């Protein structure tokens, strides 16, 4: 409740000492007295902190000159409003201030409007809470966007992969199937039109060539079929335990004929009781591909060694096929396993391949939980190894 004038006088006299003390120590009261010629006559501690080395310059708004120009009836303030003090380049504050003038002296009394400060503070704190909540929303949306972006990248990569698969399929169709079929057509045409002009021997040669072209076409189609089925995840997978050395001998049996044309022999260093846990069709395809590759790239009269050893872990077996043959460069080794780099190299006897064989091997080895790799030196030979779980 505001006080009456009488009470006020009494109050001020009664508390005079305390009021004086307050004026000088309170951090919320700002006091300064200037002479009109610009000398600082008196300040309290809180004001002194802001006026610093050059008090006149610290009166930023209104300035000292502006205050001098202001006039008012006796004992009324010449100025009532915000007074900004401080260092224009640094920090400053706005005080709620009254400025009085008596004779050649100016009195500045200022302070902070606690109610206004508190009100602003509350509003700012609500604003901050709101912004902080909003920031969380944004963080969350960013995280979601990043996840979506990653998914898109993955889908994109697999689309590229399947596009490469399709391209490869088409190019095999276009090139690799074309040449044996052209041979078939040409040879059969010759036979059809001029069969009476050829000797029996010549006829036999033609028939043999026709058969070779047919076999090659068949093999190519077979590889394509296996590979595209595995690409589409349509290969049945029924692993069981089986004897590795028996599998090796069965595969060699089928390919012995081909090996014989280059007088290549096999040395199977697999213990009789070595059991693997594999899908029979898959592991046989892997072995068949690796053996026929070895034959293809071996020098005539050489030996292909098949071996097995435990490792790299207790439960895994490493199976290897070493040949003495053309081998390959570092660069060729890195390109072996990728569809986009697919290359087919001619063998020592100009044998042709589809370039799909090793990709099929990789798929099947990995499907069975293993890994496949090659070690090779150009001009000396290659060793292909793969791992397979032991039974």
């Amino acid at each position, binding site marked *: 409740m505001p006080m009456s004038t009488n009470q006020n006088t009494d109050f001020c006299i009664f508390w005079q000492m305390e009021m004086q003390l307050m004026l000088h120590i309170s951090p919320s009261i700002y006091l300064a007295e200037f002479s009109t010629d610009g000398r600082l006559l008196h300040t309290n501690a809180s004001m002194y902190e802001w006026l610093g080395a050059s008090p006149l310059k610290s009166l930023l708004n209104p300035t000292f000159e502006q205050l001098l120009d202001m006039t008012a009836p006796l004992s009324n303030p010449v100025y009532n409003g915000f007074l900004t003090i401080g260092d224009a380049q640094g920090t400053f504050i706005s005080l709620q201030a009254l400025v009085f003038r008596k004779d050649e002296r100016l009195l500045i009394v200022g302070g902070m409007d606690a109610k206004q*400060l*508190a009100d602003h*503070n*509350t509003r*700012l*704190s*609500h604003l*901050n*809470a*709101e912004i*902080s*909540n909003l*920031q*969380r929303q944004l*963080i*969350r949306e*960013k*995280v*979601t966007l990043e*996840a979506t972006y990653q998914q898109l990248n993955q889908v994109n990569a697999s689309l590229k992969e399947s596009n490469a698969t399709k391209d490869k399929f088409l190019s095999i169709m276009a090139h690799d199937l074309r040449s044996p079929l052209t041979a078939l057509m040409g040879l059969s045409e010759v036979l059809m039109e001029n069969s009476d002009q050829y000797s029996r021997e010549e006829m036999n040669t033609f028939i043999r060539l026709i058969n070779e072209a047919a076999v090659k076409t068949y093999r190519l189609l077979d590889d394509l079929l296996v590979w595209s089925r595995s690409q589409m995840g349509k290969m049945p997978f029924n692993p069981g335990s089986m004897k590795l050395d028996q599998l090796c001998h069965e595969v060699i049996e089928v390919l012995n004929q081909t090996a014989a044309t280059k007088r290549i022999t096999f040395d199977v260093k697999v213990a009789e009781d070595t059991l693997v846990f594999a899908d029979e069709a898959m592991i046989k395809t892997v072995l068949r591909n690796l053996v026929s590759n070895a034959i293809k790239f071996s020098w005539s009269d050489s030996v292909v060694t098949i071996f097995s050893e435990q490792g790299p872990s207790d439960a895994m077996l490493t199976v290897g096929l070493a040949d003495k043959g053309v081998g390959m460069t570092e660069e060729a080794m890195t390109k072996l396993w990728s569809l986009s780099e697919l290359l087919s190299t001619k063998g020592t006897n100009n044998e042709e391949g589809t370039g799909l064989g090793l990709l099929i091997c990789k798929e099947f080895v990995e499907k069975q939980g293993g890994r496949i790799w090659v070690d090779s030196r150009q001009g000396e030979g290659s060793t292909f190894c793969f791992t397979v779980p032991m039974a």
Partner: protein
Amino acid sequence: MFIPQNTQRFSLMDIDTDRQSGFLNTLLAGERSLASNMVADFIREGVSVDDIYEQLLKSSLYKIGVLWETGRIGVATEHLASAIVQAIMNDLYPTIAATRKQPKTVVLACVENEQHQVGIKMVSDVFELAGWTTHFLGAGLPTDDLVRFMNSVRPQVLALSMALSFNWPTLEKMLQTIRRIFPSLPILVGGQAFGKGGQERLLAFSNVTYLSDLYTLKALLTNPASFINANVH
């Protein structure tokens, strides 16, 4: 049905008192980046988010409450500290937001008129870390808006926070309204008002459970036999 009793400790690591008071001092000084760095250090040391929330952020804010109560700091400092704490929670939030979500949704809000939102924000993060999709609605939301929102997202759980004891009547009114529209929805409540007694007033409502802190909440969320998880398919 599994309801955790009182505040059991599920924490693996305690933050020592020296570092707690160091952190409190940076908060009081308003040193946002220093405080952020301290929390980042704790994370690097392997301290979990719930331990940081309970033993660092919450314990500091409680101490700030005491400083305010005993007249040593003003509301402005309280504002500053809770602003820094929320900024730090946002520092941690990208990892929290990236947790894999299951099809479980929770709506979280303060009791009407309640401005204290730090606690329920922490609760929201613990839900999110447990794989829940969270809708944190914050402070000052009228019950009508809350109900409208719940109708649109159909949560499996509602979580409400109340810090001020004089908000009890508001809470009871809210629970009545919500129960009329969602008769069996599990509701979790928490906040400092409950620590001051009056929990028996919750008995008037079915399936409303009070939890004291993040550890009991985490236990509830990770226990497959809890009533919350039993309701989720």
